[in-house]
């Protein structure tokens, strides 16, 4: 779906970590790819292939030893207003209510109170949590907690949404429901999304392209373009084209984990 305009450019990114033997471990090596404007890109790969590291670099929480990430022509030097992250373990503040959690980033950005509440309520409604504003995270199921995590990210109205296995901690049923809802939200208000997952069906169902990373060191192994029509509904999961694409990704990952 990229209309030629590149929103995100990852340019020869290499990330090293110190290892236990006092040497260095190459988590990512020479990783290069683009994400188009309003594109939904998934990153999939065996565990340890550097998916989280890559997303943290995109988020400005980690810095590469070589190469750079460029968003809207500006090199990423830290977290930025045009990006928001949805975390795998939700990362909700347990002492704040649903509303309190969603307004949190808006408070940090000094958005005025009225505007803050308006945007928060809008985002909360969008993720289907209207009426739960005063609940605390420990009163909510995992699925509902991640809806809060998603609402919090949407409330800052980011251009680029970064998601690190956001549904990885949820049961299969809840996961598909949230995938459907994420797509609905995305259809209505398209953003550039980078979505890390280790679930092949999830990657195929959501994405325009699936980037497959190999491990040790993490490199771009292959990019699969998903030509399935949108809007994508639950039925798509039971079609032959869908199964073929998932099978394709599955075979590639098989060769990588061997």
């Amino acid at each position: 779906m990229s209309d030629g305009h590149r929103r995100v450019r990852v340019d020869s990114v290499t990330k090293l970590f110190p290892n236990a033997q006092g040497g260095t471990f190459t988590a990512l090596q020479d990783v290069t790819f683009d994400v188009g404007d309003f594109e939904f890109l998934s990153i999939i790969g065996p565990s340890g292939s550097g998916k989280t590291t890559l997303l943290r670099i995109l988020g400005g929480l980690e810095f590469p030893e070589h190469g750079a990430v460029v968003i809207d022509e500006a090199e990423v030097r830290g977290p930025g207003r045009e990006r928001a992250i949805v975390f795998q373990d939700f990362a909700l503040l347990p002492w704040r209510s649903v509303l309190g959690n969603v307004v949190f980033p808006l408070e940090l950005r000094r958005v005025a109170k009225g505007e803050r509440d308006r945007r928060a309520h809008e985002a909360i409604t969008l993720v289907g949590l209207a009426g739960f504003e005063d609940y605390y995270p420990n009163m909510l199921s995992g699925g509902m907690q991640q809806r809060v995590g998603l609402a919090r990210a949407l409330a800052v109205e980011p251009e680029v949404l970064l998601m690190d296995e956001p549904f990885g901690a949820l049961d299969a049923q809840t996961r598909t429901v949230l995938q459907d809802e994420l797509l609905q939200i995305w259809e209505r208000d398209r953003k550039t999304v980078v979505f890390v997952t280790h679930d092949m069906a999830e990657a195929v169902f959501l994405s325009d392209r699936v980037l497959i990373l190999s491990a040790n060191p993490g490199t771009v192994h292959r990019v699969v373009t998903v030509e399935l029509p949108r809007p994508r509904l639950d039925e798509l999961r039971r079609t032959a084209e869908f199964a073929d694409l998932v099978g394709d990704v599955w075979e590639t990952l098989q060769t990588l984990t061997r």
Partner: protein
Amino acid sequence: MGNVADVDALSRPRARQSRVRRFVSGAWQRYPGALVILGLLILWEIAGELQLFAFLPSIREIVDAGVTLLERPDVWRSWGRTLLEVFVGTAIAVGLGFVLGVSMAQSRVVEALFGLYVDLFQSAPVSAFVPVIGLVFGLGYSAIVATVTIFAFFVFTVNTYTGVKNVDPRLIEMARSFGAGRVAVQFRVVIPAARPMMLTGLGLAVGRGVNGGILGEMLISIVGIGGLLMYYGGAFQEDFVFALVFMVLIIAVVLMSLIQRLADKYEERMR
């Protein structure tokens, strides 16, 4: 209409009575420990009335002494003085302990410098230092306040340190990803996350502060409630001594449980 009013008038006292009964039975269920205390008090009263132990007054005598004490304005003034010392001393302990606890949790250097001593002093018999405090601070308010501070300081520091140390780093990262700087991370993530531990520390600090205050008054300058305890002890008026001891216990327990309740309120959500 008259009939309806009659029914109301009849049912109201009954409702009240059952409410009292519900409160009592609820209290037993919730605080079974109260039964133990009641049993001990009954045994005590029997032992006291039979004069089984030379210096053990009966509960009745202790209550009489307590009433006498409550009627004396100088006793109220002593309470005022003692509680003020405890309040000021604990406040200083909390202020200093907050700074030291937070710095120790976040700076390797500060942790290396003070960690061992804070740990040691938390369980050390600080009472041994009380006479020395008198030598340093003289015999006035400041000596007692300093005693309270030293008694209350270490628990609060250790609890603050532990609370800050255990803040989930993923929450800090989340805040940073949304643009929080150092200050915002401190005030909006670290301190709120550590708050239940700090409030628990405050409850313990108040308990130790009361302890320290009374001890200081007994050993340094014979003023306040500690002073009264010394006086009645010296005069062998055990009923008055016990009456004061009970008052101290009650006040300390009430203060501590109020603070603990506040801590629980926050902690409930943190699970």
